[in-house]
C-alpha cells in the first residue's frame, strides 16, 4: 500500500470532494437534508483557494464538485414560474450521494477498528510457503512457445465474449511489470490464467503479456507448470525471492 500512498494524498486529508463537503457540513453543524448551498459553496471555494497550486488532472473531482455547487446555487436563485414543490429540489441528488457516502465513511471507521483488533491475532497463514518454493526446483520451466500458445488460446476464448472496450486508459510495459511483481510479492506467485482473465481489454492483455516476457527475459521471474494441463504459475527467481516478504 505504501507505494500508492503518494498518489492518494489529495487536498491534505480528504479522500475526495464528498469527504470535503461532509466535513464542511459538519463543521457548520448543518443538517445534511437542508444544506444552505450559498454558505457551503463559499466555504468550499475558500478551501480550494487555500491550495496555491491545484493539479488539474488529479484534483478535477474537487473542481467538478465546486461547479456542481455553483450550479445548484444558481438554480435556487433563479425565479421560477412553477412553485418549488412541483419541481425537484436541485439539492436532492447531492443529499442522496452525501447520505450514501456518510454511511460508507462510518462503516470504514468501524472496519478500521476491526482491522486493528484482528491484526493482534496472529494466524498461521502468514508463514511464507517455503515448501512450495523448494518444490519449484523440480519443476519444468515453461518454454516461451508454450506461454505464447496459452496466451493466444486464452485470448481466442475471450474473443467470444464479444466485448468491445472503449478505448481509454493507456498501459505501459513499465507499469504492468510493476503490477506483476506486486502480485507475486503479495501472493508469492501469479496464476497465469487468473491474471489474464482479469484484463479489461485486449490492449491491456497484450501489454501485460509483453511485460511478463520482459520479466522472464531479465530472469526476474520464472514461469512453471506443475502438471500437464494445469495452470501456469509465475514465481520470482530464487535470488530475488530471498528478500524479505511481509504479509497482509
Amino acid at each position, binding site marked *: *500500500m*505504501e507505494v*500508492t*500512498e503518494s*498518489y*492518494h494524498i*489529495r487536498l491534505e486529508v480528504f*479522500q*475526495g*470532494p*464528498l*469527504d470535503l463537503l461532509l466535513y464542511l457540513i*459538519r*463543521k457548520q*453543524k448543518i443538517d445534511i437534508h437542508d444544506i444552505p448551498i450559498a454558505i457551503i459553496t463559499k466555504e468550499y471555494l475558500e478551501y480550494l483557494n487555500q491550495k496555491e497550486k491545484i493539479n488539474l488532472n488529479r484534483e478535477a*473531482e474537487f473542481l467538478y*464538485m465546486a461547479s456542481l455547487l455553483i450550479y445548484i446555487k444558481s438554480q435556487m436563485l433563479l425565479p421560477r414560474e412553477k412553485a418549488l414543490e412541483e419541481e425537484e429540489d436541485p439539492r436532492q441528488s447531492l443529499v442522496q*450521494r452525501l447520505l*450514501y*457516502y*456518510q*454511511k*460508507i*465513511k*462510518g*462503516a*470504514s*471507521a*468501524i*472496519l*478500521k477498528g*476491526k*482491522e*486493528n*483488533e*484482528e*491484526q*493482534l*491475532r*496472529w*494466524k*498461521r*497463514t502468514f508463514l511464507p510457503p517455503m515448501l512450495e518454493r523448494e518444490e519449484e526446483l523440480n519443476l519444468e520451466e515453461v518454454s516461451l512457445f508454450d506461454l505464447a500458445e496459452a496466451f493466444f488460446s486464452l485470448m481466442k476464448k475471450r474473443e467470444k*465474449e464479444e*466485448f*468491445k*472496450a*472503449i478505448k481509454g*486508459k493507456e498501459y505501459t510495459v513499465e507499469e504492468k511489470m510493476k*503490477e506483476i511483481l*506486486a*502480485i507475486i510479492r*503479495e*501472493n508469492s506467485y501469479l496464476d497465469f490464467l487468473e491474471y489474464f*482473465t*482479469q484484463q*479489461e481489454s485486449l490492449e491491456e492483455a497484450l501489454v501485460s503479456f509483453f511485460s511478463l516476457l520482459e520479466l522472464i527475459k531479465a530472469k526476474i521471474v520464472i514461469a512453471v507448470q506443475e502438471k500437464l494441463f494445469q495452470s501456469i504459475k509465475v514465481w520470482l527467481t530464487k535470488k530475488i525471492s530471498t528478500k524479505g516478504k*511481509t*504479509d*497482509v
Partner: protein
Amino acid sequence: MYNRLKNIIEALIFISLEPVNMEKIKMVLEEFPPEEIEKAAAELFQSYNSNERGTQIIKTGGGYIFSTKPEYDRWIKRFLKIERKNKLSPAAIETLSAIAYHQPITLSEISALRGVDSSHTLKTLLQKKLIRIVGRKKSPGKPLIYRTSDKFLTYFGLNSLEELPTQEEISRILEEEKDFEE
C-alpha cells in the same frame, strides 16, 4: 471416546491454514453423530479460552481457525522481527466498504459512490485478494463486476456479510465523532 473426538477436531483445525467450517468437520468425521461433534467442539473452544494457553480457536470467515491471543502480540512481533503489520490505506478501506454494502458493483459505480476515481485502489484490493471479479455487467462497455472475497471476511474478523456494521452502529459512530468535534 468423547475426549478422542475433541482431540480429532482440534487436530483438524490445527492443520488448516484457512478457517474450517462445522459442515466440513462433520463431513470428515462421518462415523460420529453430528450432535456429539458439536458438543465436543463447543467444549474444545471453551477449554482454549482458559488462561492456560497462548492460543485460542476463533470463529472467523464462517469457520474455525487457530490464532494467538491478542495480548501476546508484542512478543510475536519481536520473535518474527516484524515491527508492524501493513495496514490498508483509508482509501482502500473506504473502497472496500463501498463494495461490501453495494455488491455486486462495477468500478464506475464505486467511483460515483466515493466521488473519486477508484481504479487504482481497486487494483490493489484485487492483488490483496480482498475482492474478486465475478463477471461482466450486461451494459455498454461490459464492465467487470466485483464482490468482496472470503479473505475480506477473515481480514476483519467477520463471519458473514451480515456481520458488517449495521445502520445503528454506523449512526452511533457518526454521533460520537460529532460530539468529539464539538
